[in-house]
């Protein structure tokens, strides 16, 4: 667990459009997640936060544009596909994080101390032998965080990691994020609690399918931006026309600077 200074940008988004069934959920997004960023993804429901994280994790294909990724990325989805009825102990669940080091065959016994330390970090000491099915929702989240710790990835993507979790646990987990930030890791988290974002996240991307604003949190989370995000994220148009904006191959470069949505492309169907 060492700091990783002066790394290449871990994630670059180039003219990125992600979506389902040709309907964009993230629309014409350009930008760079820099090494060491602690970035909050903010936006109303349906703004494309989860879709963007899935795309960054490589779970879905881009409709247009591309995502350039450097290095290993750990990803914690919002709705995990984990089968909690499977007879697995908390120790084994957390130990899955060691895959890169232990692979399919090497024993986890050598790493037992590391697993126990990770569980202790998230406040689950003494839970090692418990079946995962007996954990509460919050405890289960903690166990997943222990697995993330063991993954030891330079880039961590979190999709609403604190939903349904009590205040003390959230404090503990935020402390963990700050520790990762201090170690030079890149953390991207989709969040709804704006107070949390303002208190802990230096940079924010405000998303409403199209990017509303991306930059220092104080500059992004203004009342005007938030109102625009709300207005933009409405309405799924079943008969949306084909987007007439430029294809991503044109590669119009944007930087972090806040830019208004639609200032770089326009829709034919301005209905």
């Amino acid at each position, binding site marked *: 667990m060492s700091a990783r200074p002066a790394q290449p940008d871990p994630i670059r988004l180039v003219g990125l459009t992600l979506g389902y069934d040709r309907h964009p959920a993230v629309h014409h997004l350009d930008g760079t997640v820099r090494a060491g960023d602690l970035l909050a993804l903010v936006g109303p429901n349906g703004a494309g936060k989860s879709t963007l994280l899935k795309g960054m994790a490589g779970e879905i294909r881009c409709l247009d544009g591309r995502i350039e990724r450097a290095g290993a990325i750990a990803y914690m989805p919002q709705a995990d596909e984990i089968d909690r009825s499977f*007879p*697995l102990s908390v120790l084994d669940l957390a130990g*899955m994080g060691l895959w890169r080091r232990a692979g*399919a065959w090497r024993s986890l016994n050598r790493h037992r101390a590391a697993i126990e330390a990770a569980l202790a970090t998230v406040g689950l000491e003494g839970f090692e032998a418990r079946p995962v099915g007996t954990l509460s929702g919050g405890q289960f989240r903690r166990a997943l965080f222990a697995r993330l710790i063991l993954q030891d990835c330079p880039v961590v993507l979190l999709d609403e990691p604190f939903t349904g979790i009590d205040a003390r646990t959230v404090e503990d987990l935020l402390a963990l994020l700050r520790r990762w930030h201090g170690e030079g890791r890149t953390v991207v988290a989709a969040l709804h609690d704006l107070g949390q974002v303002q208190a802990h996240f230096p940079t924010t991307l405000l998303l409403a399918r199209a990017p509303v604003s991306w930059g220092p949190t104080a500059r992004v989370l203004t009342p005007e931006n938030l109102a625009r995000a709300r207005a933009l994220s409405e309405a799924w148009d079943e008969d949306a026309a084909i987007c007439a904006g430029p294809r991503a191959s044109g590669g119009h470069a944007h930087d972090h600077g806040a830019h208004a949505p639609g200032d770089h492309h326009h829709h034919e169907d301005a209905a």
Partner: protein
Amino acid sequence: MIEPFASLVAPFVEFGFMRRALAGCLALSVSAPPVGVFLTLRRMSLMSDAMSHAILPGAAAGFLVAGLSLPAMTLGGLVAGLAVALLAGAVTRATVVREDANLAAFYLISLAGGVLLVSLRGSQIDLMHFLFGSVLALDDAALMLLGGISTLTLAALAVIYRPLVMECVDPLFLRTVSRGGGPVHLAFLALVVVNLVGGFQALGTLLAVGLMLLPAVAARFWARDLGGLIPVSMLIAAIASVAGLSLSYRFDLPSGPAIVLAAGALYVASMLAGPRDGLLRRLARPRHLEA
């Protein structure tokens, strides 16, 4: 005490074909139940039933070409079963249709083809042989096959155990750390097919599933984690094999169904008396622990 034990052992001491049957069933008892444990944990119990039908056309084709030839029918069954498993898996990964629906589609096609092939040539007796197996007529080749399948299954499970567990528990996580998820899943489906083909030698297609699933389900009432479930399921399968064969000898019953019914009886007994969530334990509600 001596008397029932002697009558249990006597047929195996006396008759070579009974010893062969026992050896074959015990080989199957250590390989099929662990596969069944994973199937039940993945909620794919009924998938093995579908696969057992999917094997039929291959075995029938082998039978049509070479008669009652073990290698031909085994090869045909393996090809048909693997084809259905791989096609269903591939279509599932390429489209939005779920795996159970794809399996249902492919196994129905396969089964209909099999019935057609069987009816083209062959009498009712041949069909009965297909469906109920011939555990009392295992020759050397069949025993070698069962032993080979058993060895292969245990070795393969040892190799893919950790990724297979991860694939069962959290497939998305496995996808993010490794590309092995797909191959592991297909390898597991192949093990299901191989064991069903082995079981169809001993027990017939309809009952091959029995020795795979009944012990696995029964084990859930005795053990909590995989380290317990797998050995318990093997033990239950072995007991069912011995009991089923003895009963079939003593009362002149068809051996395949006798073995599966013995496994079924063990399942019912486990469900009633098992220490983990058995029905009788539920009735006895013990005083709860301190918070």
